[in-house]
């Protein structure tokens, strides 16, 4: 596991982009833990960069909805979402499927990943 994390460190520094501050050890750990889960459960729809898909699938990157409803994110990941939602001024209505196989720990790791990786950590 230690070896795996060290492999991810340079990748994750790159993923975080060129912000002023370098990620702390806790953030690095969260990104390393969440990367594989994001790839398996989220990437097909929400995209490599969390960009979403046109006006069908909302972005996760810099999402005002996530910033305003951080506590709803794990619920939506686990139970899916029906009906329209407004994200960054655009309306998205494609249903999101449930991910009931995720454990609580995995859910937590995914939420941390989405929060840190895609700029949804807030101020």
């Amino acid at each position, binding site marked *: 596991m230690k070896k795996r994390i060290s492999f991810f460190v340079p990748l994750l520094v790159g993923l975080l982009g060129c912000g002023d501050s370098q990620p702390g050890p806790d953030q690095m750990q969260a990104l390393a833990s969440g990367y594989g889960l994001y790839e398996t459960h989220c990437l*097909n*729809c929400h995209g490599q960069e969390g960009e979403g*898909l*046109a006006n*069908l699938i909302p972005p996760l990157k810099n999402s005002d909805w996530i910033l305003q409803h951080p506590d709803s994110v794990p619920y939506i990941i686990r139970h899916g979402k029906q009906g329209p939602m407004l994200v960054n001024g655009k309306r998205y*209505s*494609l*249903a999101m*499927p449930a991910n009931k196989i995720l454990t609580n720990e995995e859910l937590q790791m995914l939420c941390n990943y989405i929060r840190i990786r895609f700029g949804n950590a807030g101020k």
Partner: protein
Amino acid sequence: MKISKLAGIALLLSACSEPVLPILGPREVEVKQVNGKEVVDTIYKTIPDFSFYNQDGDIITKKDVMGKIYVADFFFVTCPTICPRMKRNLLKVYEAYGNEPNVMLLSHTIDPDHDSISVLKEYAEGLGAKAPAWHFLRAEREYTWKLAEEGYYATAMADSLEPGGFVHSGGLILVDQLGRVRGVYDGTSESETKQLINDIPLLLHEKKD
């Protein structure tokens, strides 16, 4: 001697500079008598006749695509796996050729029970796609699955073990003006989609023989 060798290489290079896409699928050899001489002709398999409703409720048949180049794929709206990746890549094809009247996209739903015409309309609008450049097609599911397999060499069927309940191949199938399959590209791959976008002009410039 050296010059003639160079000339030969130059000829070869010029011949290679205009690649021709292969014609995929089975073919039959037909032997005919023309002016008392035996002539061998190759008959290539073409897409069978079809009829679907599109997202606007219009009937689309093979007549609408003959003489045009089109890219076909099989998907379903609630697909949680490869479909969004395929659509993300198909959007790039649409952005490149959406205004080219001789290029079309045909996306066939393999789950018509869920994907009604109004669902397909909403999905198309969400992508920013409009007919006649991009049709989202619906017919009875067995009809679509059979066309996928027999016409486009693709897989489409129900499978309760698969996420979303269906299994299907992620190919973007390139069809020429005569209805012949000329390429199958992995619709989940950015590099293969780029190749598809680069290959379309090769067919646009082909003579309709």
